[in-house]
Each structure stands twice: as C-alpha cells, then as structure tokens.
C-alpha cells in the first residue's frame, strides 16, 4: 500500500512536470516551446488518434481543449507511468526522492505563479475579459451561448476585473517566495477551484488546462492537508511540515540570486512586454478601428423603391474591431463577413465562411454618423441608410453604482 501510494505520487509529479514542458504555450522569449510537443510527438499523436482510438480529424492543432490536446496529456501520462516504473524502488532514486520531489514542487510553484501573473495582469489591463463588442450588446440574451455570455458579462465590470486580477497576482506573489508559499498554495487552490467550476459550468473551452493548473495547486497544498485537518477540524495544535530546501547549503548565494533574478525577469518580460509594447494598459480605452460600431437601418430601398421594414434584408449591422461586418436581420439572426475597407474607393470587401467574396459601396457622413451602404443581392441593387448607435451609453456599459436603492429613484 505504501509502495502504491509512493508510486502514484511519483506518477503525478512526473506527469505534471512533463505537461509543463510540453503543453504548448505562447512564450515570447521561448517561441520554440510552442512547437515542441508537435515536433516530438506529432507522429505518435497521429498514430494514437488513427490507429488506437480510430478518430479522424483534419484539425490537428494541440490547443486548448482540442482532441489532440487531450491525446497529448494521455501520452504524457503514459510516459509518466513508465518513468515511474523505471525509477521507483531503485536505491539511487530513493535516496534523492524527497529532494527531487521538493525540486519539482518548486518548479510547479513557479509555473503556477507565472500563469497566475499572466491571467491576473491580463484582467488588470482588461485584456482577458474585454468590453463586449457592439454586436454582442445588441444580440438578444437568450440567443448567446453560456460561454460568450459569461465572457461578455465579465467584460462589463472593470472593478470586478481589478478585484479578481489583484487576487490572482497576490496568489502568484505569495507562491514565489518560500515563506509565503503555503498561503499562496491555499489561495491559488481556492482561485483555481472557482475557475475550473466556471469553465465547466459555462462550457468554456479551457477545461483541461484550468484543471491542470488546479492539479498543480493541489500538489502544492497536499503536504499541508493533514496539518490543516488537525488544526481546523480536530482543533488541535499542529505545525506545518518543513519544506526540504531545493538548494543545498553549499550552493553559492550568487548563483541562487542570479537564477532567481533570471526567472523573475523572464516572467516580468513575458507578462509586461505585450502591454508596454502596445501601450494598451486598459483595453476598454484602446482606440477602435475606422467605422467600428453599431448601425441601425432607417431606410432601405431596392431599385429606388422604398422597402417596408419587414422586407429589409437586415435591420442593424456592426463593424467589429477585428475586421468583421456583422448583419442582424429582422429575426435577430446574425451573419458575419470578414471585412476589408478601401477608404479611397469607398468600398467594403467582404468574404464569408465559404470564402465567397463581394464588394459593397459605402458612404459615411461623420457629421450625423450616417452610414449608407449599397450592394447587389439576387441581382437587385439595394441601398440602406443607417445611423450610428451610441452603444457605449447602453445600460450594460454604464459605470453606475448605487449605495442605496433610494438613489435609483432619483
């Protein structure tokens, strides 16, 4: 039983370490890391998917919650099992096991801290839960999936983003230092439990990765559980177990300080480089592209005949900040097109999901924010005149705050 427990612990540690190495990340300073798993295991993954599990997919990217991502983790678990079989019980391993696992815990703490710093600062800079796009704001609530609803709702509150972001940054900072690591592990576990629950509850496709981060937090917390149980449940005196030192006493302070600075510097560069480079410290205030916004159709004509409202091809359209034109018909159905704007010739160049291209003429009057579009549909020339909507004044984006309900009446 003891051997089995020791073996299981080794497997979990090895698996977590391999996952840290091979889960593709987007590291600016180590860009090759993203291709590492595909380069090393690409062939094996294809073999497992086609010959063992018999599933065929043309989408072979190892990214968040893709089938290949699950497969990669399965493969890493197999490697961890094999590796543990090889080392477990060997005298040499048993003499260094305690220190090796402590070393791995040190790596896990730093990795988890790094991820929490990234997510935390992303929230502080409003890069993660960004302000909802105009098309989202004018889509009926019930028509949206739970994931985009959650994402958009979070994007409406800057204060809540600050709160959750600061909490994640705090947990990360606590994890980075030995003295505060236990508190950091406790806080990180609480945060990650909530995130995993959100990802599963709102069907957000970061389920596996967030579960992996929770696993890391739990590995860090596990050595404390017994002491916490004694203290909090049995209400007896308990002391937390001492964490073996990763660096032995003879390890020069200069090397240790240099290594830690290198790691902290790397983390800082990865976290802050994007925002310093773009100068975008609050995405809500970032400049939006030309014509970005929501437009409500006031008048539609076909071959110079005015159309009744129910015959309009669409009632609103939106220009999305990532280069999309989105049409909303009278039944609130949406249709999106990739958009290029030729400002000189006054044309929209559109492409749909099936790569069908078309061109629309447009005329924008800035004085009254009128946007008129002309296009051909079923061989007939349409002309739609629309006015820009003040979407930033919608209730969802107003920074209202009320201490009392009486204030609402005023």
């Amino acid at each position: 039983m003891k051997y089995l427990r020791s073996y299981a612990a080794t497997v979990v540690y090895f698996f977590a370490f391999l996952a840290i190495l091979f889960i593709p990340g987007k590291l600016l300073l180590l860009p090759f890391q993203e291709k590492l798993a595909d380069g090393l295991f690409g062939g094996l993954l294809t073999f497992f998917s086609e010959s063992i599990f018999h599933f065929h997919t043309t989408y072979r990217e190892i990214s968040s919650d893709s089938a290949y991502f699950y497969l990669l983790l399965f493969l890493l678990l197999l490697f961890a099992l094999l590796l543990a079989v090889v080392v477990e019980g060997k005298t040499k391993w048993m003499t260094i096991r305690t220190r090796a696992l402590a070393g791995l815990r040190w790596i896990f703490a730093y990795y988890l801290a790094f991820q929490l710093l990234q997510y935390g600062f992303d929230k502080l800079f409003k890069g993660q839960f960004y302000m909802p796009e105009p098309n989202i704001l004018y889509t009926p609530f019930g028509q949206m999936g739970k994931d985009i609803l959650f994402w958009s709702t979070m994007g409406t509150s800057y204060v809540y983003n600050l709160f959750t972001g600061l909490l994640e940054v705090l947990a990360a900072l606590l994890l980075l230092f030995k003295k505060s690591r236990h508190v950091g592990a406790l806080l990180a576990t609480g945060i990650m439990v909530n995130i995993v629950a959100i990802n599963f509850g709102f069907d957000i496709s970061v389920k596996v990765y967030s579960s992996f981060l929770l696993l890391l937090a739990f590995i860090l917390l596990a050595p404390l559980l017994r002491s916490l149980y004694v203290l909090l449940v049995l209400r007896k005196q308990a002391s937390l177990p001492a964490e073996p030192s990763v660096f032995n006493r003879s390890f020069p302070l200069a090397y240790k300080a240099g290594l830690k600075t290198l790691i902290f510097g790397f983390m800082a560069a990865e976290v802050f480089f994007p925002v310093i480079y773009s100068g975008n410290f609050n995405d809500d205030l970032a400049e939006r592209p030309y014509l970005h916004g929501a437009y409500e159709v006031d008048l539609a004509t076909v071959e110079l005949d005015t159309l009744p409202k129910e015959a309009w091809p669409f009632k609103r359209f939106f220009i999305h900040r990532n280069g999309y034109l989105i049409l909303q018909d009278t039944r609130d159905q949406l249709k999106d097109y990739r958009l290029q704007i030729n400002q000189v010739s006054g044309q929209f160049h559109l492409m749909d999901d099936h790569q069908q291209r078309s061109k629309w003429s447009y005329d924008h009057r800035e004085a009254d924010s009128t946007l008129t579009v002309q296009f051909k549909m079923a061989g007939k020339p349409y002309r739609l005149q629309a006015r820009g909507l003040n979407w930033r004044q919608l209730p969802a984006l107003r920074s209202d705050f009320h201490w009392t309900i009486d204030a609402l009446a005023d």
Partner: protein
Amino acid sequence: MKTKILSLFFLSIIILQVNAQTKLIAHKSHGGSEADFQLALEQHLLDIDGSNYGLAPDPLLVEVQLDSLIFVNDTTSIVVTSLFSKLGHESEAVQVLSGDGQTPKFNRDTVYNHPDLTAKLPISDVKKRINLMSNYRNPADSVKILRLEHGNYVPVEDEENEIIVPGAPVPPSGGINQSLLLRWSWLVVLLMAVTVSLLAKHYERSGAASRIKA
C-alpha cells in the same frame, strides 16, 4: 499618398490581433455560429492563432506574405513565405528579419498535391486561387511563380521581372523589429541576473568578512 492610405487600410482591417479568449469565444464574438465553427477551425479562418487558454494575445500583428511559389513537378510545390509584423492598427508593417538582422526571414514549406498551388493548373488559375486565399497579405501578381529545372529557378510567366529567390538579400527595413526587441529583452534579463548575482557575491563576501571581524 493615395496608395499609402489604400494599402494602410487594406492591411489594417484584417489583422490577427484579438482579445484574450478561447477560439470558440473569438468565433462567437463576431456573430459566428457553432455550426460554422468546425468549418472555420479546419480552414484556419479563425482570427486567433496558436494555443490559446484565454490569455491576452501577442500585441504584434503578424501578416504572411507569399513571396514565391516554386513548382518542383506536377504534384510538388514549394511555398516561400515571409512574415511582416506591426504594432496596432495604424502602424506600418515591418518585415521580420532573420538572425543576421539584414535579410528577411523566409519560411519554405513543401506541399504535395495541393488543389490550388499546383503546376497542373494554368498560371492564371493559380493566381486567381491565390487571390481567393485569405491568409496572404499580398496579391497574386506580386508572387514570383517559378519552376525548378535542373537546379535553377525559371520564371513561369513574366521573364522580364526580377526574380527573387529564397534567401536573396533585400535592404533592411526600418522600424521596430520583433525579433530584435525580444533579443534585447533577453539581454536585459540576463544583465539583471548577472548584476544581482554579483551583488549577492559581494554581499556574501562582506557578510563573511564582518563575521570574521566580529
């Protein structure tokens, strides 16, 4: 000037920058339906790249230029591309340079039995199909289409055009270069580490000295 405004707007609207989100949320955020998601995924039409776990994206906008298309034979072609990066919507794209900081960084991919990039089709058709592809920043007319014959690159169509083969040097472009900036970041981090390390050594020595004195 007109050309500049035109090209700026052509380039600035379709971009790879997105806010932090998952691929599915990115797709839904611009009105994409779940039914179309698989199609967008398989055809790489999503405006979000790489592995995304809900984190913020690289602020550098990256565009791909198709520089040359080389037909090795009827079934095999080599696609030579280079990258352009730019910062934000309004900035001008700058070519990503290779390690020497002088020549563009070219990527060569060999494609087999590609339905569009094949010598089996007339060149005019190949060009039409390149123009229909949404993943390249440049029009088909600017792509050098060559045939590999006895180890030489032979232009397939317009012989008067200058032939740019992979690796040919071009004048270095000005502006911010991503790889250069990242190299500087590494240098700064390493310098910091060395400085702290030296300070620690000094502190250790002075501490030891004061202990001996005591």
